[in-house]
Structure formats: C-alpha cells, structure tokens
C-alpha cells in the first residue's frame, strides 16, 4: 500500500494518470453495471465516403441523412 502510494505521488504526471485511471474505471464500470447507453455519438458522416465519380449518389445520401435545411424539405 505504501509502495503504491509512493508511486502514485511521485510527480504530477503520476498523480494525473492515477486519477484519470480511477475516474475512467469508475465511470465505465458504473456505466456497464447500470446499463447506461454505451454509444451516444454517431460519427458516421456522409462526407467521409464521398466519391467524385458518384456525385449523384453522394447528393442523394446527404439529403437522406435528415438535413433540416428548407430547400431539402
């Protein structure tokens, strides 16, 4: 225990890393136990699979992805 404390309190970086590890562990374990939603941000973006040879399909997929601009409604 004393040895562990010594390692954690060695310098500012070890304190930071230890704090963040405990923080993330608690956050994730609690999330899994209580069945919180594990994914909230959908990073799929139609711009990412943009293909210059298939301009028509790109426009189609952009409109389908739920744009709220008035001209697409």
């Amino acid at each position, binding site marked *: 225990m004393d040895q562990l404390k010594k390692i954690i309190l060695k310098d*500012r970086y070890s*304190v930071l890393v230890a*704090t963040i590890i*405990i*923080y993330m562990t608690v956050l*994730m374990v609690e999330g899994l136990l209580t069945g919180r939603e594990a*994914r*909230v941000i959908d990073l799929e973006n139609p711009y990412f699979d943009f293909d210059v040879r298939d301009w028509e399909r790109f426009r189609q997929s952009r409109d389908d992805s739920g744009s709220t601009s008035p001209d697409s409604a």
Partner: protein
Amino acid sequence: MNSLLPAQFVALLRREVLENRTLFIAAPAVLALVLLVFALWIISMAPSARIAEGVEYLSIMFDGLSPAEMAPMFLMPAIPFIMMLYACVIIYLLNALYQDRKDLSVFFWQSMPVSNLGTVLSKIVTVIAVVPVFYVAILFVFYLLVVIALSLLGLSYDVQVAGLGYMFLAAVVSLLLFYVSTFLAALWLLPTIGWLLLFSAFAKRTPVMWALGVFILLGFLEDLIFGTQFLGNWIESRINFRQYIVLDLPMAMDRLFSYDMLFGIVVGAILITGAVYMRRFVD
C-alpha cells in the same frame, strides 16, 4: 482537522472573494447595468401610449397567483446572469490552482499552515455556495431598480401600480430558486469542477488546453480501445438546460437525492482528491 476550523476556512473563502472580485461581483454588476440601460433605451423609444399599456398589463398579468407561483417566471430575466455565472466560474476554476503558481505567490500561500485539502475545498465551496450569494444580491438590486422605474413610469401615466409591488415580492422569491438552482447545478457539475481544478493544479501553462485536450483524447481512446462512449454519455447527460433550473423546492429535493446526482458527486470526489494531491507539486 485543523485546516477545516471555521475561522480559518472563512478566511480562505474571503481570500477567494477578494482576489476574484472582478469575476464574482464586477462582472454581474456590469451585466445588470447594461441590461438596465438597454431597458431604459427601449422604453425611451416606445410611444407613451404603449408604455402606459405595458405597465398596466404587467401589474395585472399575474393576478390571482401567489408570489411562490409567480416566482419561476422571474428566473427568465435571470438567465443571462446564470450564463455569466457559468462563464466566470469556469475561468475562476481554471485559474484557481494555476495563477498563484504562475505569479509565484504560491510560496506565500503554502508557507501558511493551510492544508492542500483546505485550499481546494475553499475553491469548491466558493463556487457552490459563495458566488451565487453575490449574484442574488445583485439581482435583488436589479429587480428593485426595475420595479422602481416601472412604478415611476406607471405613476406618471396615472396607471394603477399596486400589482408591481406584488410582482417584486415574486421576484424576491425567485432569488431563492436562483440560489437553489445554481447550488444544485454546481453539485450536478461537480465532476466538471473537479476536472478543471485537477488541470488547474497540473498544468505548467494553459490549463484550459490541457483540460480540453485530455478530455477529448480520453473520449477518443475510450471509443478506440473499448468501443464504448461512457465519457460522451456523461456529457450528454449534462447538456439539457432544464437540468440547471429548479422551479420549486420539491423538485430541488428530487434532484438532490437522485441517483445520478449522487454518482456525479462520487465521480467529482475522485477528481477533487486528485486535485488535492496534485497541489503538492507547486514548482
């Protein structure tokens, strides 16, 4: 624990207020002044018939409602103040354990028999309980001036203004809701407070970059390694603006004793403990 003796702790809080009087007092006072001047400007532009009508309408608008029932309406004009409070508190927290290291006065503070725990707790209590007191005081004066101005206007147009007094009572009750709201919001955001203090104590320069950068990096790493987004989930759980306003006291009690609030306090306590230990490293 010696460092938590009341007299000493009060001195620590006093220090925070004296050092940050610009953030805690001048900023909301200037906001109140700007809003007052803006309101007067609007009134001066309006035709007099509309003004008389408006004051009369205001004085009867809440007829039949008790001040307690009216109070939540008066949180509306307080919204700019709540936003200002958050902005100032974020700046304060990022500097709280950084500024004195930068200007080297930390060697004076640390040469006093004050524990790191006492120092960090004084910053947190300042945010949770002390800063809102100044906002409440400034809002009180703000509402008082508005009511006086409206009454004078009403009298000059020969309008019944008794209802305005009643309205002021409701505004005063709303200040209680304001205080409870900001108090609970600070507890609700305790993990954020802990996070900012941790990096305020850690960074050798630009704590804001560290605090933001590590957070984003961590969210990215979590997604990459575990395929989960509990960090993102945590943000999503705190972005709804309605969480930051309570409209009556039973609602406040529900908030305070909710599971999510308690879990947030636990997580916040972990980060705050980190900040306390981080404070050992001052050079």
